[in-house]
């Protein structure tokens, strides 16, 4: 078993799903012979043919809308949005249709589709290529929002998303597309869509995050460990529906929580987790819940981008601040 990167894990999962279920299709801009601008779909058209893998015209609202139609007919389209910044025009279809079709027809029609998009900053990409607005999707009823943070979880979660009978928005942190790598068994095992992953156990403080920020968060946990502080690190992975039990359980033991995400602070999904801590978790909190997040500004162009992104330093500062409370 060789080590592979997230982008390869994503590709592996798609290939696996296409292999086992012929209703699985792959569509999007440049996903065919070009293999996607990040090469997530590389080789798929050669392997599965252009009746199952196809390039579309340049139209994002259409991508989502066509997927809804295919889904209602029993296909399982896995549809790529080239960058999350170009996903906005498709929100209408996600909120007004994909997330509702089963409900509004009382189960007569359904929408087993996956809408994939690379997201997040940190790769010095051009303007509009670094957005993170997973929180918008997490507010939409009737869908799932899934974000992998490693090759293995990427593989398992994407398989689960494709097999899921309901619409899934699957956001891939492109900063970790190529590294780190890890061993991934192409065994067709799906990862659960209903739970967080505890990446590191610890009893002094809980660090909650998802996507690429898992790297900085784990690094911060390592730094804290050097100081004798054991941080528990939780990868939320499935933002919607949220497995709050795992987080509450952790905070019950640690009494402290820092939530880390790259999206702008205000209205980010960290707010939801903090809000639930302020409710069910309040009795266990021994210190304020901190959020380390992107600023409430437009993601800067590359020259200043790294100042925007939450750093290990900012995570550590927040952790240290609440470790002072007793």
């Amino acid at each position: 078993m060789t080590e592979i990167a997230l982008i390869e894990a994503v590709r592996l999962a798609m290939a696996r799903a296409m292999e086992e279920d012929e209703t699985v299709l792959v569509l999007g801009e440049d996903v065919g012979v070009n293999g996607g601008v990040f090469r997530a779909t590389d080789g798929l058209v050669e392997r599965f043919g252009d009746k199952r893998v196809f390039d579309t015209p340049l139209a994002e609202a259409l991508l989502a809308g066509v997927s809804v139609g295919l889904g209602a007919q029993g296909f399982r389209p896995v549809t790529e949005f080239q960058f999350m910044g170009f996903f906005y025009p498709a929100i209408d279809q996600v909120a007004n249709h994909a997330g509702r079709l089963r409900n509004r027809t009382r189960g007569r029609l359904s929408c087993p589709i996956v809408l994939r998009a690379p997201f997040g900053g940190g790769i010095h990409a051009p303007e509009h290529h670094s957005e993170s607005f997973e929180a918008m999707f997490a507010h939409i009823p009737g869908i799932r929002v899934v974000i992998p943070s490693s090759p293995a979880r990427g593989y398992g979660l994407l398989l689960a998303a494709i097999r899921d009978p309901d619409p899934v928005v699957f956001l891939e942190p492109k900063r970790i597309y190529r590294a780190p790598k890890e061993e991934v068994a192409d065994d067709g095992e799906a990862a659960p869509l209903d739970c967080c992953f505890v990446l590191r156990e610890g009893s002094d403080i809980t660090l909650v995050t998802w996507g690429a920020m898992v790297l900085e968060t784990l690094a911060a946990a390592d730094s804290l460990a050097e100081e004798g502080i054991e941080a528990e690190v939780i990868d939320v992975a499935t933002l919607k529906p949220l497995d709050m039990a795992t987080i509450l359980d952790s905070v019950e033991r640690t009494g402290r929580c820092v939530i880390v995400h790259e999206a702008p602070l205000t209205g980010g999904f960290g707010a939801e987790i903090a809000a639930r801590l302020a409710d069910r978790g309040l009795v266990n909190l021994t210190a304020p819940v901190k959020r380390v997040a992107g600023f409430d500004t437009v993601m800067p162009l590359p020259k200043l981008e790294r100042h925007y992104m939450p750093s290990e330093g900012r995570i550590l500062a927040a952790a240290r601040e609440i470790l002072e409370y007793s």
Partner: protein
Amino acid sequence: MTEIASFAVEYRRFLDPDGQAVQPLPAFAQDPAALIPLYRAMVLTRSFDAKAVALQRTGRLGTFASSLGQEAVMAGTGAAMRPEDVLLPSFREQGAQFLRGAAMTDLLLYWGGDERGSDFAGPREDFPICVPVGTHAAHAAGVALAFQLRGEARAAVCVLGDGATSKGEVYEAMNLAGVWRLPVVFVVNNNQWAISVPRERQTAARTLAQKAIACGFEGVQVDGNDVIAVRDAVERALEQARSGGGPTLVEAVTYRLSDHTTVDDASRYRDDAEVSARWKDEPILRLRKHLTDAGAWSKEDEEQLIAECGKEVEAAAEAYLATPVQPVESMFDWLYAELPGDLAEQRAGLVAEAGAAGDAKDD
């Protein structure tokens, strides 16, 4: 300067407003008796619309969109389709939906505010009513793509309004249909108005049929008050679609004789005189004249049909009014195939609350 491409838009009409054939009728229309089901469908629709408006006026139905004057577009489209085709209506196509097998009670339930109204017992693959204007065009493309991928001789029919042709989503779907030669027919119910905005202020295009030129396929304009022309055009388009010939846009030129919906007051923005003038073109009268002239329809037939339709509509309305409301927790039960944990909790809270309040029934 060289001309490198040229295009034409054609117009078709078989019956003039007096019901006289202006050209040889298509095969299906040659025996006048064979047109009676079309006539019946239009009368039933008008009868249904009148009842639905009455129910709304008396507080027993929500907002409703009548298709008054546009019955030929609906009947012609519905009749042209085969059972295995799929209809993607917007919100004014009850006439087509009935011909597809959707129950009147279902549509009343829907407009009455009950999701079960979209769980048609009849055409199981047809899409529910689409309220966000034009968003169903892409669904139609997706459904058509499914047929194409499976190699099925079926087609999708998407009905939309003149206003909807201004939506980018509709253009995107039409463009895709063109380039992939999808088996889909776009029927534009050009009823001249999008709420208060008249057709001429929606687009500078001389016809709506020519919207298809941008997408590389044919658009045709028909007299939308001539049910024979509508059915003929949609039927041809469907045949072409099913046999791999790609999409067609059929613009049916008609007129919205009613308010936009029951919450609209069209007298605010259009002349009563304009509306009155359009009554002479309306489709039911036209076909009745044709049938009567052909000796295929009598006053007694008419009376009997009206009575029959009235009865059918009344029965549907009664069934609708007698339908018990859904349990409150139904708002959770169809959201996902399996209810996620945190929703189970919300559901339990709602059930407890409603139970405590004795809320078995609702308004």
